[in-house]
């Protein structure tokens, strides 16, 4: 089960990376307002990117899905919200929220979360089609 989850997250990330373009930013500079120049704090180290949070995400995703499967929709919502606080860029959270709100009879909320989830979902990703359906009102 855990392996399957890890695999799904991995595939989702890969497909997302493969299908979307990244954007560089660099243009010649000029500024109308005076800017104070300050030395960067000496000795400060910044990792090039934050370490992965996948273990926590996988655990909560698994928990939320289980809660959903057992009909504990309110708990699934809570777990998904908790997951969003850790990594809001996972489309799965929005899908769980959307599906849970549908079960709870709140289709308006479900549609909104589905729309938000599409932002983080690749068109070839697993959750995309379902998010699209819900966002279009096809429950």
């Amino acid at each position, binding site marked *: 089960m855990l392996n399957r989850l890890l695999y799904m997250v991995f595939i989702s990330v890969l497909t997302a990376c493969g299908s979307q373009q*990244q954007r560089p930013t660099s*243009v010649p500079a000029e500024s109308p307002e*005076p800017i104070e120049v300050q030395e960067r704090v000496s000795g400060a*180290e910044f990792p090039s990117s934050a370490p992965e*949070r996948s*273990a926590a995400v996988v655990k909560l995703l698994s928990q939320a899905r289980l809660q959903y499967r057992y009909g504990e929709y309110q708990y699934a919502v809570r777990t998904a919200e908790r997951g969003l606080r850790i990594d*809001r860029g996972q489309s799965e959270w929005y899908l769980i929220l959307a599906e849970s709100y549908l079960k709870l009879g709140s289709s308006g909320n479900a549609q*909104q979360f589905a729309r938000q989830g599409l932002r983080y979902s690749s068109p070839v990703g697993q959750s995309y089609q379902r998010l699209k359906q819900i966002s279009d009102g096809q429950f």
Partner: protein
Amino acid sequence: MPPRKKATRRKKKKSSAKKTSVMGFLCFWLRWPLLIAGLAFLVWILILDVQLRSKFDGRKWALPARVYAQPLELYQGLHLSPAELSAELQALGYRPVKRLSGPGQFSRNASLFRIHSRGFTFSDGEEPARRLQLQLRLGYVDSLTLTNGEPLSLLRLEPAEIGGIYPAHKEDRLLVRLEDIPPLLGEGLIAIEDGSFLDHYGLSLTSIARAAFVNIKAGAVVQGGSTITQQLVKNFYLTHERRFTRKVKEALMSLLLELHYSKREILETYINEVYLGQSGPRAIHGFGLASEHYFNQAVSELNSSQVALLVGLVKGASYYNPWRQPERARLRRNLVLQVMFDSGLITESDLLTSQASSLGVVDAKKISRRNYPAFLDLVKRQLLDDYREQDLRSAGLRIFTSFSLRAQQRAEQAVERRLTKLEGVYKLPQKSLQAAVVTVAVGSGEVLALVGDRQRGYPGFNRALDARRSVGSLIKPALYLTALQQGKTLVSSIDDSPVKVQGPNGSLWQPQNFDHASHGKVPLFKALSHSYNQAAVRLGMQLGLDEVATNVEKLGVDLPVRRIPAMLLGAVEWSPLTVASMYHTIAADGFYTSLRSIRSVQTMQGLPLSRYPLAVEQRFDIRFIYQLKVAMELVMRNGSGRGAYKQLPAELAVAGKTGTSNDQRDSWFAGFSNDTLAVVWLGRDDNDVTPLTGASGALLLWSDIMAADVGRGLDPFLPEGLSNVWVDSNSGLVSAENCRGAILLPFIEGTEPRQQGPCEWIENPLIHWWKQF
């Protein structure tokens, strides 16, 4: 019988008869008054009894609502420094030890932490107490395991209490049950206050005698004459007046209390009732709260020395105040320890160790730093939408909030340092500048931190919520968003030549750029990133004031926006929280969320009352918002916000906007990363001019805050329906990656520029590398 004797007897008989007749007379005449008095006394006792029982059986105290911070979620990849983790643990009352021996302890070896968590019952399940090991590296959690090496994916520490909403009389207490306190506390209390507590019926002559004996033996007053029951009656039911009738009442009620309730119930009530100190206007009652107040520890975790100090305070919490009178408190504690030893409650070695130990009370300065009045103010205002103030002040509700101790500390520290530095650099009078900060978690819309005054813990005017100041150019993103919605692209040409706008009364308004220069035709993104006023006003008048103002409102500004030309340059007065609401909608890709400070509310017993779930509403097409965010990112890379990168890592993509009001009375900055939005205002309370622009004031403070909270940069992935095109940053014509001045910008499919511009070929490896980001 001799006649004399007879005569004497007759006399006695006469006298006796006389007495009997007097008594009879008195009885005859006084029988009704006596009966009435007796009945009245009986009625009085009955009334006392009813009063006594109704208070004791009902809700004994008005309990304040307790407000909790968000729990610290520990997981691999969390941004957390060793100092921050230490601060979080200490705020929770975890004691630093060399070796873990129980819950509520931690040990630290450089960046390796071992923690024995306490466990907590959250609304969505129980988090058990666990022994864990945490390795931090470069400001992140590198590994998280149980101390036996088993990997741990996620763990929540219990939430720290950050304040309360108190009853009018400001009494505060944290109720404890008798089974939750260390046995030494109950036994020690009895030994010191009322040795015969278990034997008497509320009143005890032997208690008075024993107290006198103990006091003489100790050479000081260490034991009072009143029983614990009498003390409870006095504190719980009566006033402190010294009158005979009150003493009678106290005695009667003590007997009644003992008649109705067990010793256990009386002692437990006493332990929660007794006054044990003062924290500003807040009165500390009961051992549960006193334990947190003096030691920042749960009462169950107290050692002999700490128990003795608290027991000693019963005699006079102010007189033996361990912060103001440490020597007096130490002597008192040691005396209590001696009595405990004499009573066989502690061993000799415990006595000697405890008497030699320090008082162990928390640093008084740290106590004042645990006040977050600005955030509590927001919590209370949001709670009042759903709860009556009376209930908040008395029902003992448990309020779980989004408050982040780390975010608050970062913001407070940054405010303190930056304002002092700015006053030094610009030779301003000390403490002349004021500040307000709002930090929000992007996506959830949860307020993480709030600074309402530069002085930490100051409970006065809350600038973050109540200071309505002119926002200047902070409003411009709404204007450019409107332009994008109406068919403009990021390279659409905007005219920044001088502009005049006619007012309704015929007056002419001629806004100028900050540098008093005109820049001719400029691409839209540049007009925003350099905050050109002339371009903004001309564009806004073309788009329509109502369209721009409507977008401002849709972005989350819940105040009416006047449809006047000056609005286009920010002649509107908003609080930092209102600005945060507007910018959060942009940061969250056009999804509006009402900013929240409360997650859930529970009853005193932990039953759920209400939850405040995340709710979102899409108000803008993500394609327009995405383009706007790119333009705001360019504000940071090349425009008025670029000074931020003196502190932020170059690879961190952030977006934001400066704001400066007329005559530089207000210095604003609002900006966000992928995870965090922060809004900063700087200025003077008297609204006088300052030498600060948005870039030279608020931006620096914003950068301080964000540099301490390096989260993830903005999401670089293009939404559907947009495509990136290399364009020339000056002309807006199609360019290519290796052409000078080329920039990759998003366009809605079908609106991309078609005309090819000239290309001056460059191949700079560094620039090439940067373009990968």
